[in-house]
């Protein structure tokens, strides 16, 4: 409030410095270390062909992921937004499911379903009487399959939202002016959808560039930058990992800048609200039956990985060898998981780290959003907004390496302490990575809040704290729930940062799943996956409730 401009300035300076220390400082240290330090990392990167191959792989895999996701997601959006057929509503929301689950769980589920010893491979092997598994889900093909499966949702949701905003009278105007259906689509609909499509492309590109789980599990010898960074780090070549991280960050930022530029203004909203075109029923009994069947088949196909995960989690260790379907099912994996404290540890670890990092990210976002939304325009305000958004623009692996580099040195004068090897660094990383999500949610929440409400509270005798507690906080509840649930689920299912920063004492669920897979305890791995899935879905469900 303007009553205390001095106090507001102090708060803003303190917050800017804190955010800069958490978000920007590690990146600067990373760049400094990569470029300086005798240039050994730079030389290694420049002279090894494998590095250039991984860089090229990251770029083309990301671009291809965008194309595949668009090819699947955009037509689906048109189908669900423009046509009416039985089951449209249920299917329409089922289809968005892959987005709400942690990417790591999806990857594991895919492995069980389509991997070389997965259900589908076994079935094909049985049907054709083959000696060996008919395929190996490996390399670029495998990665692209998983990316397309999990990332089409962005195109689907963005395009549907864009179509819902479209004014039917605009399409009618085009037709009245003599344009055919096709030319209306090309000359009116798609140009109007451009912001939506560019937004989806940006999101898919950023997700694909930073994707780690899919390349790690399915890549085999095929390396992209994220897996290359982790490999370098595990080989003890931290300097090289730093250089690789900087290069990957540059790729991400280049993509961000290019795609942002093509986004354009949101012309649809600028023109004001219209009514979206009415849905057309699909004509002809045959066509309708076909579309309905195809729709449900698609839903089953999309849900199959998750159902597979549930099934595998019920298979006791060593009971399933060559059969197509597992012969024995029991709850033993879950029993063991909850009975043995050592096995339960990762679950407890993930829960407290996700909860702690979410609380931190919420607190930071609450203060930052309050200062940004309520303060007078200033350079600091812009800086705070930029710092909040920064972690989103950089892949998780890059941040993990940056935090590792920054907090492996004890030098309090430069604000660096040794946190590497402690249990604190990983939740700190979760928190930093969650700040964009909670920040955006709370900023939106604050902007929807009428400042007059806070003044009304003050005029009725409520002081600053009472106003915050009795008016601001209750009204921000939906934003807090939405941001908090997303942050929590991201922390709970994280694999990218965990693999770089975990210690034995805070090993999270994802690391335990990988360890179980390595010793062929598929059932335990799947049981962890199911728990992760159920908790995530429950938390997101709670967060979305009004």
């Amino acid at each position, binding site marked *: 409030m303007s009553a205390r401009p001095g106090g507001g300035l102090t708060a803003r300076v303190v917050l800017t410095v804190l955010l800069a220390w958490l978000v920007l400082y590690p990146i600067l240290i990373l760049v400094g270390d990569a470029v300086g330090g005798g240039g050994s990392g730079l030389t290694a990167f420049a002279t090894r062909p494998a590095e250039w191959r991984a860089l090229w792989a990251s770029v083309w895999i990301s671009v291809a992921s965008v194309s595949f996701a668009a090819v699947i997601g955009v037509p689906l959006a048109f189908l669900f937004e423009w046509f009416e057929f039985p089951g449209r509503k249920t299917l329409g929301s089922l289809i968005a499911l892959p987005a709400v689950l942690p990417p790591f769980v999806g990857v594991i589920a895919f492995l069980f379903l389509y991997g070389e010893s997965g259900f589908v491979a076994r079935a094909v092997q049985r049907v054709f009487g083959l000696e060996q598994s008919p395929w190996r889900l490996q390399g670029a093909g495998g990665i692209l399959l998983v990316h397309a499966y999990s990332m089409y949702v962005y195109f689907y949701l963005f395009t549907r939202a864009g179509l819902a905003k479209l004014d039917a009278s605009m399409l009618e105007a085009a037709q009245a002016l003599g344009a055919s259906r096709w030319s209306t689509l090309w000359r009116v609909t798609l140009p109007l959808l451009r912001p939506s499509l560019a937004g989806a492309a940006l999101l898919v590109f950023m997700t694909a560039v930073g994707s780690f789980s899919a390349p790690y599990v399915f890549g085999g010898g095929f390396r992209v930058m994220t897996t290359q960074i982790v490999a370098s780090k595990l080989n003890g070549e931290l300097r090289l990992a730093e250089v690789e991280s900087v290069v990957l960050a540059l790729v991400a930022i280049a993509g961000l800048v290019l795609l942002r530029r093509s986004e354009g203004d949101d012309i649809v909203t600028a023109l004001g609200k219209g009514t979206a075109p009415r849905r057309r029923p699909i004509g002809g009994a045959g066509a309708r039956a076909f579309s309905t069947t195809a729709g449900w088949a698609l839903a089953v196909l999309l849900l199959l990985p998750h159902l597979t995960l549930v099934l595998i989690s019920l298979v006791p260790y060593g009971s399933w060898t060559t059969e197509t379907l597992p012969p024995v099912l029991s709850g033993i994996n879950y029993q063991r998981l909850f009975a043995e404290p050592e096995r339960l540890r990762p679950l407890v670890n993930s829960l407290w780290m996700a909860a702690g990092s979410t609380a931190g990210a919420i607190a930071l976002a609450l203060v930052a959003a309050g200062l940004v939304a309520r303060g007078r325009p200033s350079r600091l305000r812009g800086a705070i907004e930029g710092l909040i958004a920064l972690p989103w623009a950089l892949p998780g692996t890059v941040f993990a390496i940056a935090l590792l580099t920054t907090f492996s040195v004890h030098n309090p004068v430069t604000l660096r302490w040794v946190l590497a090897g402690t249990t604190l660094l990983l939740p700190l990383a979760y928190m930093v990575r969650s700040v964009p999500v909670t920040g955006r949610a709370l900023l939106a929440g604050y902007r929807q809040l009428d400042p007059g409400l806070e003044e*009304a509270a003050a*005029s009725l005798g409520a002081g600053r704290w009472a106003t915050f507690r009795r008016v601001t906080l209750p009204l921000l509840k939906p934003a807090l729930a939405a941001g908090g649930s997303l942050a929590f689920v991201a922390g709970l299912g994280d694999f990218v940062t965990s693999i770089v920063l975990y210690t034995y004492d805070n090993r999270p669920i994802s690391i335990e799943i990988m360890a179980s897979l390595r010793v062929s305890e598929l059932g335990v791995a799947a049981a962890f996956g199911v728990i992760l899935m159920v908790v995530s879905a429950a938390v997101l469900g709670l967060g979305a409730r009004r």
Partner: protein
Amino acid sequence: MSGFVTLDGVRKRWSATVTVGPLSFGVAQGEILALLGPSGSGKTTVLRLLAGFETSDAGRIGIGGEDVTATPPARRRCGMVFQHYALFPHLDVGENVAFGLAGQGKGNPGRIVDALKLVGLEGFERRRVQELSGGQQQRVALARALAPEPRVLLLDEPLSNLDPALRERTRRELRALIKRVGITSIFVTHEQEEAFDLGDRVAVLESGRLEQLGTAEELYERPASLFVATFVGRANVLRGPVARAFGGAGGGGGMKDGEVIVVRPERLAFAAAGVPAVVRERRYTGAAAFFLVETDGGDRLEVLAAPDAARVGDRVRLAATSVLRFAEAHA
């Protein structure tokens, strides 16, 4: 400055070119004061300074003899009705009204009932504010502001969100209610009719300065400046030869250089002798009609007269029964 609410040299500087004040005036206990002015005149700033949402750069503000210049809004005991009401959407009607009461009214639920009864909304306690009509929301906002028994009631364009048919009725009800409660009230409006109808006195603001403070009649009959004369009521502003031709009517002899005269439409009449002109348009309003006439010199004037006083195209002569004289404003 004397009065229950006093401003003494209060000034708020927004930028190098935009400053409100210095303002000095007092409002008597139980009086309703209208702050009238065009947008950007500073009227809302004055209200927010009184409420404590803005801090003044200079001067002092007093309420009931107490200096509240540095008192934060929460402790000023000024009830405020916001332009868009600012009802809390997460609370129901009863909880909104109880917000300013000690312990949220739990110790004394009668206060909530009384406040709602005052505005004619008894039985509305458990309604959601989103379900109410605009007029009902306005009354809840009023009940909420009055419930803690503030010393002063501040209203920011209290009727601007109502549709025109409702506005006039609400205006009278609002005035009756405030008078019944007997609370000192200050409200902001940009509509002259509203200010005249609702306020005991009216303060006219322009570019952050107080142009005049007085009753409706004083403002209309004896405007202190050219701005007040033209902003309050209809006015023909005349300069040059035509001004000199009418100038004598106000008394005080011949026109000086740089003087302007203002004639109200009802103070002009068609007469046997006077300034020659032609009737160009006639706008019928029922009891009377407005005639737009053009003098031979090309000046256009508005005349209020009986509907059958003249017809379009008639040659007429104009005489003024009284004129106001001002020094030319230096813009």
